[in-house]
């Protein structure tokens, strides 16, 4: 790799010449803009950045970035990105996925990529609906959802992507939403800085098939009372005046309540770096139904060995111990005999 400084770039340098073809008004536009504008500040090179995606509306994302990119098959992006990141530890690898792609057809790859802690940044655009197939319920749709495939209402209980990622002991888990560019950029930047696997859930509006799914939480008039901004080392409070907070019940679950002078000292204090995933998990369970105050920001950011680096280390160890591979010795490693 060259040692020359990373060239100064602007959003234009990171935008491809391809026409963006999402529906007008789609939340994906604001996420794309946030990322294109953020990239010049990350200190990475375009040629060393790869966007990998699977299938779905979100999966078209790589075509719009002027980087390397590969639009693959449904659900498999984390597995393809795993191979890429293992083979090329020098690259910055983003996975762009959606709720169907990541949590339904690709659920297995997602949890395994997270548990291995391979150095990929998974941005999960969650709109709680299948968009590209025109409006079936998804694994994050609320129970009872009326869609084309569930005319009498869906019966499945939804996944919470953050709970799932924390359950897989992902080392970095965060949530942001498409209505707040600064928050998205800050969250994506944190994910990029993390060494290892990162999952960022992005609440994203599908204005065609599931419009306003998050309006009750992310709408401008609702944010004050419904968004809980997580800040490391600080008591978890929300509301226009910080009048609400998160408390632990005697049974261990987290609940929200009005903060009083009596209970203020019992507020849950957020700690991103605690290795036990229970705190992050409990925070993620605050949102088990709609219209609940919803935490935003970084749930968990812990250090753990990065998978690709560990694989490379084993190679170096063996090369140090045995010397570089030699074919002539390999062919004789199970014994040989000579016929003269």
């Amino acid at each position, binding site marked *: 790799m060259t040692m020359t400084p990373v060239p100064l770039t602007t959003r234009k340098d990171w935008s491809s010449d391809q026409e963006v073809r999402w529906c007008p008004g789609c939340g994906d536009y604001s996420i794309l803009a946030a990322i294109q504008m953020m990239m010049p500040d990350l200190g990475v090179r375009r040629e060393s950045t790869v966007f990998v995606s699977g299938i779905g509306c979100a999966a078209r994302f790589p075509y719009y970035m002027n980087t390397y990119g590969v*639009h693959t098959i449904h659900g498999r992006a984390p597995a393809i990105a795993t191979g890429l990141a293992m083979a090329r530890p020098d690259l910055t690898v983003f996975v762009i996925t959606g709720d169907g792609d990541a949590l339904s057809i690709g659920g297995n790859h997602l949890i395994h990529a997270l548990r291995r802690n391979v150095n990929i940044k998974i941005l999960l655009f969650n709109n709680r609906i299948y968009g590209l197939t025109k409006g079936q319920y998804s694994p994050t749709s609320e129970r009872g959802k009326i869609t084309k495939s569930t005319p009498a209402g869906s019966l499945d209980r939804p996944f919470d992507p953050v709970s799932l990622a924390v359950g897989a002991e992902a080392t970095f888990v965060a949530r942001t939403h498409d209505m707040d560019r600064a928050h998205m950029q800050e969250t994506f930047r944190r994910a990029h800085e993390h060494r290892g696997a990162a999952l960022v859930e992005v609440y994203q509006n599908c204005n065609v098939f599931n419009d306003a799914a998050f309006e009750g939480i992310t709408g401008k008039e609702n944010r004050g009372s419904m968004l809980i901004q997580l800040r490391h080392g600080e008591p978890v409070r929300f509301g226009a005046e910080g009048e609400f907070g998160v408390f632990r019940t005697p049974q261990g679950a987290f609940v929200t309540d009005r903060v009083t002078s009596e209970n203020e000292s019992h507020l849950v204090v957020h700690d991103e770096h605690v290795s036990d995933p229970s705190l992050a998990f409990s925070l993620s369970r605050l949102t088990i139904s709609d219209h609940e105050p919803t935490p935003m920001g970084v749930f968990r950011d812990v250090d753990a060995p990065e998978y690709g680096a560990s694989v490379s280390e084993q190679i170096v160890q063996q090369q140090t111990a045995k010397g570089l591979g030699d*074919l002539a010795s390999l*062919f004789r490693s199970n014994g040989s005999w000579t016929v003269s």
Partner: protein
Amino acid sequence: MAQQELSTLGSVVLRFAGDSGDGMQLTGERFTSVSALFGNDLATLPDYPAEIRAPAGTLAGVSSFQVQISDHDISTAGDAPNVLVAMNPAGLKANLGLLERDATIIVNVDAFDERSLEKAGYDTNPLEDGSLGQFRVYEVPMTTITTEVCKDAGVKPRDAERSKNFFALGLVSWLYSRPTDTTDAWIERRFGKNPLVLEANRRAFRAGYDFGETAELFDARYEVTAAPFPSGEYANITGNTALAWGLIAAAQKASLPLFLGSYPITPASDILHELAKHKEFGVRTFQAEDEIAGVASAIGASYGGALGITTTSGPGLDLKSEAIGLALSLEIPLVVVDVQRGGPSTGLPTKVEQADLLHAMYGRHGEAPVPIVAAITPGDCFNAAIEAVRIAVTYRTPVLLLSDAYLANGTEPWLIPNPDDLPVVDPKFADATNHVADDGSEQFWPYLRDENTLARPWAPPGVPGLEHRIGGLEKADGSGNVSYDGRNHERMSHLRRDKVAGIVASIPDVDVDDPTGDADLLVVGWGGTYGAIATGVARARAAGRKVAHVQLRHMNPFPGNLGDVLRAYPKVLVPELNLGQLSRLLRAEYLVDAQSLNKMQGVPFRASEIASAIETTLGEQS
């Protein structure tokens, strides 16, 4: 001490059989190894159950290992064993039907108690009821003697009993005049860390050998002299090991880091195990969460400029199909190794079959041609792997490399190649823009093709100015941008087809084995049936038939002269371990009346079956 007569044999086929826990594979491998070092030609056929430890003593739990050793060139493990070593009644019962008429049977008589007989389904003791009358049966108390000789070595009887396979090895080593020093040395090496086990095995081996010499049970002793090999250095090698080494060698010669994405599956797992041992070559092995992730990670690695490989067997190939289609559409190198086993579904996990050919050929949606290479012997798995990598890298395409359960576990002496003589493949990574836009700007077009090969540029991330996006959606010819244009799709479909068809220019014509040049029948085989067909053809020739033989290694595209070769013979016979897959392809492609000879029994063809089919096809001698 009686001096037994020493007779010289041209070849002998031995079969070791016992319970899964009796160490029969190890015993067979040791006998093979000693014979290889001694200079015999040989071929082996391990045959073991899918269960790791099926109920002890039952037919389901029988594990066998067959080996043919000879003083001349052979290419199969033999049709019918001349000698069966049966460690228990089940081992006897399961293999009796395979033996030649007057075969020798050596049994561990200690294991023929009432309970074991019952477990094997014997109502009466076959050693006593006269049912083995046509065979020469030697009853040897292997367990008793083994525990006896281990007594004063401090080995518990239960542990000592486990060394009885070394007693059997010692006895057979005596019977066939095998040198003992290599086995002694091997026992020393293998069990050095466990002195008690080392001592028990050494004593058992010695006791078996001495038993042969002193027991006056055997009226004859045999030798099989060394075969006349071309001079050189040899190793005894399984197909799976040869395949793994071929991949390592190919990656080295192409200066590409090897990446294996794989999920454990019988009978392919040993390739993963072997590659995982060789990190000194920079090999990255990744045991993925499933078959799909195995191939997907390999695609990701190839996209990043590594040599992506995935290994599997039939059920895994089913799961990988969609991803292989992606690699085909992305046009990046990928080698998919399918070690074929009996199907469909879980089928016969440890048994051989060749029924994945049409899957390899057509098992994807859309017009999705994939080159196919098939290995023909265990040692040829090495060459086949190198050839698969050459095609994948040169033509930027997924390649299916077909092996099978017989090749995977079978062994043969392999002439060790000089690494300097192995072919070099240049990955020719893209390093510059290749297109000037209307506005004069320099661009990189990922789907601008090489005129000769129709291969597109391989442009892994990291090169400034070559940033580009590709995917599974149809791409515009040249620029690679997403295109839904129907005429472009048709053109791209033609290009993908023509690229794979054009590989024919780089592969050799088929080599026809036709000594007289005017054979009445051409036998066309493919892949792992080579040994049985070559031997069967040789027998038919010895019986006066004029028979030609072709063994295909390139299944897609077929070699350029194949049509002419097929049409040059009045009759064509196609033996396959399936229900007629190659014959169907040959008929479709060349309009020849290819007759099928099919077998689906989980075991290789016997040479006699080939010879007899040749007789039947040719009819009465004119």
